[in-house]
């Protein structure tokens, strides 16, 4: 893989609403496949040898995989927000974010507070530290989501997308309509799409990390049958369960 992706240890994450702070650097040309994970990442992109020209990127609620073209010296610093926390950090509803996300001037216009993050930094380490400090400030400035929202977000993840929308709603004493509307605001996704992404991510981990056969993974992940899982892999990953691509499996926590 052309890019080295690292996540900071948990002890260095300034707030419980952040799932991971990561950095990545490519030392040669290549492509890097990004899988949909239902999350929103705030990213600073810069050239590793000269962290002066920094571009802010906000990944969008896409359910499609895409390939990132990497060049030597491209580097990234990013924060991935836990489901339900992104609007609070960013200061915008994810329902308004286009699937392809926002970057550069368009992003700064939408979120002026990001301007300070794109000021020149003296080093990549300084950039990362400054990024963490800003996020800590944003965390302190906004109240955490209500307990009910956290319980709902947890339920999606704990059940790995296997609970029906009606169940999720009823169990948390909200209507399906309310849940759908809130979930779109919080994540940019319809609950059903979000569940399918979670289900795919789980099946992928069952195969690549737990060593389950595709048949066993399809069963445990809750697919109606193996062909359903294969279709999901092609849709969300662009590969077959029998030959999964060597993609980076990011940390996912609710």
């Amino acid at each position, binding site marked *: 893989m052309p890019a080295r992706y690292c996540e900071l240890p948990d002890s260095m994450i300034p707030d419980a609403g952040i799932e991971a702070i990561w950095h990545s650097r490519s030392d040669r040309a290549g492509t890097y496949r990004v899988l949909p994970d239902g999350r929103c990442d705030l990213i600073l992109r810069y050239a590793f040898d000269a962290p002066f020209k920094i571009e802010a990127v906000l990944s969008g609620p896409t359910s499609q995989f895409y390939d990132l073209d990497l060049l030597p010296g491209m580097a990234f610093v990013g924060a991935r927000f836990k489901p339900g926390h992104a609007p609070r950090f960013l200061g915008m509803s994810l329902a308004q974010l286009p699937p392809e996300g926002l970057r550069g001037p368009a992003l700064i216009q939408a979120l002026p507070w990001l301007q300070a993050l794109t000021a020149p930094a003296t080093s990549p380490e300084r950039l990362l530290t400054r990024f963490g400090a800003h996020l800590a400030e944003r965390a302190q400035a906004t109240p955490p989501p209500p307990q009910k929202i*956290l*319980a709902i977000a*947890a*339920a999606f*993840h*704990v*059940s*790995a997308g*296997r*609970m029906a929308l009606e*169940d999720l709603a*009823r*169990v*948390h*004493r909200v209507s399906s309509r309310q849940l759908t509307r809130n979930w779109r605001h919080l994540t940019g996704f319809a609950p059903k799409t979000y569940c399918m992404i979670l289900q795919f991510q*789980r099946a992928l*981990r*069952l195969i690549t*990390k*737990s060593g389950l056969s595709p048949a066993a993974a399809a069963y*445990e*992940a*809750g697919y109606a049958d193996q062909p359903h899982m294969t279709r999901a892999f092609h849709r969300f990953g662009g590969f077959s369960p029998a030959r999964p691509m060597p993609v980076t499996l990011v940390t*996912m*926590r*609710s």
Partner: protein
Amino acid sequence: MRFGYTIIYVPDVRATLAHYQRAFGLAERFFHESGTYAELETGATVLAFAAEDLAELHGFALRPNRPADLAAGVEIAFISADPDHDYARALSNGATALSPPKDMPWGQRVSYVRDMNGCIVEICSEIKG
């Protein structure tokens, strides 16, 4: 093998621990500072609570325990010297009534509640042998 643990996956370990101490009169044995795992003093077999989001990390998926959902298909049963008293104490401390104490044909007094997360807890007398 020997039976070591019953571990219930819950949304809030700290709150569940406190709930079991007050509602069922149990003592804490261990609480991990991360807030993700705790144990009650229950003798050789440990009753423990784990943060439900650990499931994802471990690679399994669960139906989350929620009071408004159908209960999970398992119960925890406590033997009590006074089921009527302990049933009332449970209800006064956040448990929900399911079935008040009743004498069973086999000589046991049995009651059921649901804990704060919706798990079924039985409070019953010793079976008279």
